[in-house]
């Protein structure tokens, strides 16, 4: 400590003038590091322990048996299919909106932005209730759909709608900022070189934004996979048609906890890889 402070001039004079307070401050600094260390480790401990508990709960043999059970397989398959479909729909519907919001300054853009972000903070039960009231038998849209014999609630389609509603902001937010990060000059250059707006978007804007968009897509898929509240309320909990992995965990927890744990492990491993992948992609994207 003393060597380091002696090496810098003004500090040295301070030491001579007030040795006592210097000692106090170095002791204080040590105390700060100790407290910070304790806080950091308790937090990491708090996050890691429950996850580790999941992995220690079942033997590998039990895990295989549990994951091969009909309830688990149905849930895995249904989750994979619905989350994929809802992610594709979010990308198709969300990309134009994200691009327009990134490039065009129109009146009410903030309102539109807020609206698309809303599902992130909205409790999923509110989303589920809202969907049920909108698409239910006597709902705003449900009534008219009923005329054509279409009934959405408690179907696989309802699962997808719930996932779209809840997961779309993850893609749209990310897509908007990835489009904003594409220098307008790239698009102008493409135009002056003879390509129209649509081909410019597909040949220049999209490829340049691609890795950032991919992060958004992965996050959206992960969120759709984890969707629980809105699905439960709007789509119900029927094995094979609406019982996705989170719902299956909730259900099997009461009958065969091994199945619940096995599915939970799959979700933990998947989520961990997702975040790691996204970090890798966005790290590579920093040019």
């Amino acid at each position: 400590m003393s060597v380091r402070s002696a090496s810098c001039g003004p500090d040295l004079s301070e030491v001579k003038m007030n040795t006592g307070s210097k000692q106090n401050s170095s002791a204080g600094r040590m105390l700060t590091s100790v407290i910070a260390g304790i806080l950091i480790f308790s937090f990491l401990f708090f996050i890691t322990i429950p996850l580790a508990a999941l992995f220690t709960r079942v033997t590998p043999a039990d895990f295989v048996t549990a994951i091969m059970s009909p309830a688990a397989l149905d849930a895995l398959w249904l989750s994979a299919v619905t989350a994929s479909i809802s992610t594709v729909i979010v990308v198709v519907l969300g990309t134009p909106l994200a691009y327009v919001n990134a490039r065009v300054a129109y009146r009410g853009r903030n309102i539109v932005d807020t609206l698309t972000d809303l599902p992130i903070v909205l409790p999923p039960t509110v989303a589920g209730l809202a969907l049920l009231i909108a698409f239910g038998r006597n709902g705003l849209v449900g009534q008219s759909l009923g005329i054509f014999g279409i009934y959405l609630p408690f179907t696989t389609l309802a699962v997808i709608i719930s996932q779209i509603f809840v997961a779309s902001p993850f893609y749209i937010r990310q897509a908007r900022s990835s489009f904003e990060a594409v220098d307008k000059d790239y698009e102008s250059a493409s135009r002056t070189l003879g390509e129209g707006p649509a081909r410019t978007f597909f040949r220049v804007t999209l490829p340049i934004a691609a890795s950032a968009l991919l992060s958004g897509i992965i996050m959206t898929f992960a969120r759709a996979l984890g969707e629980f509240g809105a699905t439960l309320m709007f789509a119900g909990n029927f094995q094979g048609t609406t019982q996705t992995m989170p719902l299956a965990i909730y259900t099997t927890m009461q009958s065969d906890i091994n199945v619940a744990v096995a599915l939970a492990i799959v979700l933990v491993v998947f989520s961990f890889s997702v975040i790691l992948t996204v970090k890798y992609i966005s790290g590579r994207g920093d040019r």
Partner: protein
Amino acid sequence: MLESCFKSTLRDFTLDVGELNVEDGKTLALIGTNGSGKSTVLKVLSGIIKPQTGRIVLNGKVLLDLEKGIFVAPEERNIGYMFQNYALFPHMTIAENIAYGLEARKMPGEEIDKRVLELCERMGIDKVMHERVTRLSGGQRQRTALARAIAPRPGLLLLDEPLAALDVRTQEQMRRELAAAIRSEGIPCIIVTHSIIDALAVSDTIAVIDKGSIVACGTPEEIIHNPSHGFISSFAENLNLFRGEVVVDDRGMVFVNVAGVKIHAVTALSGTVSVGIRPEEIIISRGEFNSSALNTFTGKITAMDESDMYTYVSVDIGITLAAAITKQSIERLNLKVGDEVTITFKATAVQVFV
């Protein structure tokens, strides 16, 4: 031949450059400070920005006539635009960047390959043509951007600060290459720059733009010799810019003769040239001192202008040279207007250009 006249309201002022006409094979340099509206002129001409009123005709084709409701989209204008910082597509190779405009025009693949190779060879980037542009040096990027802009044989070439992103050493070489490339295309060209040296090196006409208006316009000679506008006169003074003749004496020493004052320089050029000596490179002393610098002159101080960092001391040695001197040195040497002083600078400090 480009004929244009337009007005566009910008945030702080109205861009109104009056008639802006450039003939085939001629280059117009638009010179001005940042925010003077010079880049906007290029954006309007290329169709990236739509002005409030105006008319643009290129080779007889009307690209813009707002009274008649004509607005040709940028992709239909056939204008080569080299962006500031080049805007090379980072997800493509050099060859793919250059081919981009040719593919947009649905040129057959073989012809595209031929044209791309020809341009790469001419620009000296054929060895790296299959590299991603993110791996290129500044000079290679500049050449790629120029090649991409001229590849589709545009009817007009627009260059936005083509040399600003390069280091000083590369700039000198690229300035020569750029001038040659523009001349060989035989199309009208507008180059936007804040560097008087770039403007002098490549242009036939210089227009000075300030707050959206053209405040002075003329040949490079006229602009340097009659620096009517403050912006240019500040350049002419601050850069010690002169025109002169290259003279080689019988001992092989190279001079530039500027109004009878012989300035040692290092150059391969001959005939009438421009010379510039940065004021920071000039040393003022009381009496001569022994040094390796070849240029030593004596003269009287005619003016002293204080700026933020330096005092610009003007010394009349037959021509007036400005030297940038720190305030401490002014005090130490006790310099006053009317004092007789010696000025010294190296031959390598003298920039010589066409």
